[in-house]
């Protein structure tokens, strides 16, 4: 289809100029500089950069702490994704019935999305507090195990996963509800006529038909947990106890801005760039299928 266009030689450039300027100055130039720095060693207190080739990457890949941060990132992102996507699906299927008050339930389930992960983390920090928290207190009746996130890494990890999932759940519910409402009524009726019960309908119809939405949400939640959940780690656990909750972005920040190891930090940025490019490609590869639900 041929579109009507306006005449103008300079005007279109003026219109795109602000966005292009921001893109170049704050995105492409710094990203290029990250690539450049990743093959240099910069003395932290000035002096010339020294070209070191892939040394920064080699150093990272032979560093046990870095491996630990990669594993932590996947555990954290995987935990947040499974909890908030699976939880979101179950709640959405419940809410997608012909009942009154659907709008109320949607808002009542959605609002935690407005809470910053860091603020959510601070609230859960107190719920998990070893001395005063309501959760360790409740669990003390069930088991003698000491639920102290200050001492036990996996409890600290659970804390940040639960807090982040809490803020993400509503987002997933919004998408699942939209997707569920697009499933044709006739399909569900046909299943009922064939004698399918609620569980069979869920596994045989809802899950397959909603799978493009699920896939999309898995990628988005992974990216969010990888790149945007820095705040919950920084505000709550500071990567601890030990390095138990040091995810890749936190380590990058710590090595770059506290340790002033610029070369290593840049190399970590480049590795994260590869991760986000991979995830985004995955998302767009399947984007076509997404509209079929």
């Amino acid at each position, binding site marked *: 289809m041929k579109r*009507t266009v306006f005449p103008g030689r300079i005007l279109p450039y003026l219109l795109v100029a602000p966005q292009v300027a921001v893109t170049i100055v704050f995105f492409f130039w710094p990203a290029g500089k990250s690539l450049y720095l990743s093959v240099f060693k910069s003395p932290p207190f000035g002096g010339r950069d020294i070209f070191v080739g892939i040394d920064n990457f080699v150093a990272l890949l032979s560093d046990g702490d870095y491996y630990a941060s990669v594993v932590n990132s996947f555990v954290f992102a995987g935990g947040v994704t499974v909890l908030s996507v699976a939880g979101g699906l179950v709640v959405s299927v419940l809410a997608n019935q*012909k009942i009154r008050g659907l709008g109320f*339930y949607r808002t009542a389930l*959605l609002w935690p999305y*407005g809470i910053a992960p860091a*603020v959510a983390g601070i609230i859960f920090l107190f719920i998990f507090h070893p001395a005063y928290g309501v959760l360790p207190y409740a669990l003390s009746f069930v088991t003698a195990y000491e639920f102290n996130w200050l001492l036990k890494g996996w409890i600290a990890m659970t804390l940040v996963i639960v807090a982040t999932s809490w803020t993400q759940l509503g987002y997933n519910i*919004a998408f699942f509800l939209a997707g569920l409402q697009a499933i044709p009524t006739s399909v569900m009726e046909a299943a009922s006529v064939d004698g399918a019960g609620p569980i069979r309908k869920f596994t045989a119809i809802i899950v397959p038909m909603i799978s493009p939405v699920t896939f999309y949400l898995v990628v988005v939640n992974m990216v969010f947990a990888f790149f945007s959940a820095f705040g919950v780690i*920084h505000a709550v656990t500071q990567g601890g106890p030990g390095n138990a909750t040091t995810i890749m972005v936190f380590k990058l920040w710590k090595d770059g801005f506290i340790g002033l190891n610029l070369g290593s930090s840049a190399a970590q940025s480049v590795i994260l760039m590869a991760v986000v490019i991979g995830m985004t490609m995955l998302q767009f590869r399947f984007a076509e299928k997404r509209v079929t639900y």
Partner: protein
Amino acid sequence: MSAPARVLAPPQVMVAERAPRRGIPWGTVLVHAALVACVAVIAFPLYFAFVISTQDLAQVVQKPPRLLPSSHAIENYLEAWRRSGMARLLVNSAIVAITVAVGKIAISMMSAFAIVYFRFRGATLVFWMIFLTLMLPIPVRILPTYEVVGNLGWLNTYAGLSIPLMASATATFLFRQFYMTIPNELAEAAQIDGAGALRFLWSFLLPLSWANVAALFVVLFIYGWNEYFWPLLITNTEEMRTVVIGLERLIPRTGTELPTWNLIMAGAMMALVPPVAVIVVMQRWFVKGLIESEK
């Protein structure tokens, strides 16, 4: 990328209706009960934070934990407000969130307009450049971006807090999609009437896209308000902190200070109420914005 209209269709019946029976509809009751339970579980952390924020320290540490509000709300909130410099933190967050949201919307609308309504060299390049920003979140360019902002003299400024966050592939795509659905006849009519490009954008397209603008505004406001990594890096003065960063200051890191959890929770409540209120008040726009801007 074209499902939104369908997605936002009114709710349909998903489960086939059984023949109506007399008596209590147990199935419906069960669904309501399960949903109320979900809402309660999701609301509990907020309720708990609120309860703690109304207690004095003796009540905060008592066993078993007290799960009912107490009478110390006003003094706690006043003290948390004073101790964290909350007025300044909230003003900073509001300025940054609104600037980021309005800025992203404005520059995305202009770029999308240029791409759809003009033929110019480099249009494809511009489109791809904007698209690629999706793959460059802050952590992958953090040190050099910090350096650029430092060289511009923007550390501890509102410009530094907001402008580097402004490029937006999703908002640009949303406006582009929307402009493509507008019939050609409108632009033709405008041209016949002698309206220039800018006049057309301002008087025709903008009024037509208010729904998109409102939806994007809510989503981007939340994004700007809750951003943590960037303000943490480029501000180091009390006056320029945003509220999600400033809140951390209420948490003692040394073992010698008694943690005043009631004040921390009061601070958390004040930091989370504005974005949550925006979602609740504008929930229709918010859901629309979430779903359409991610397409």
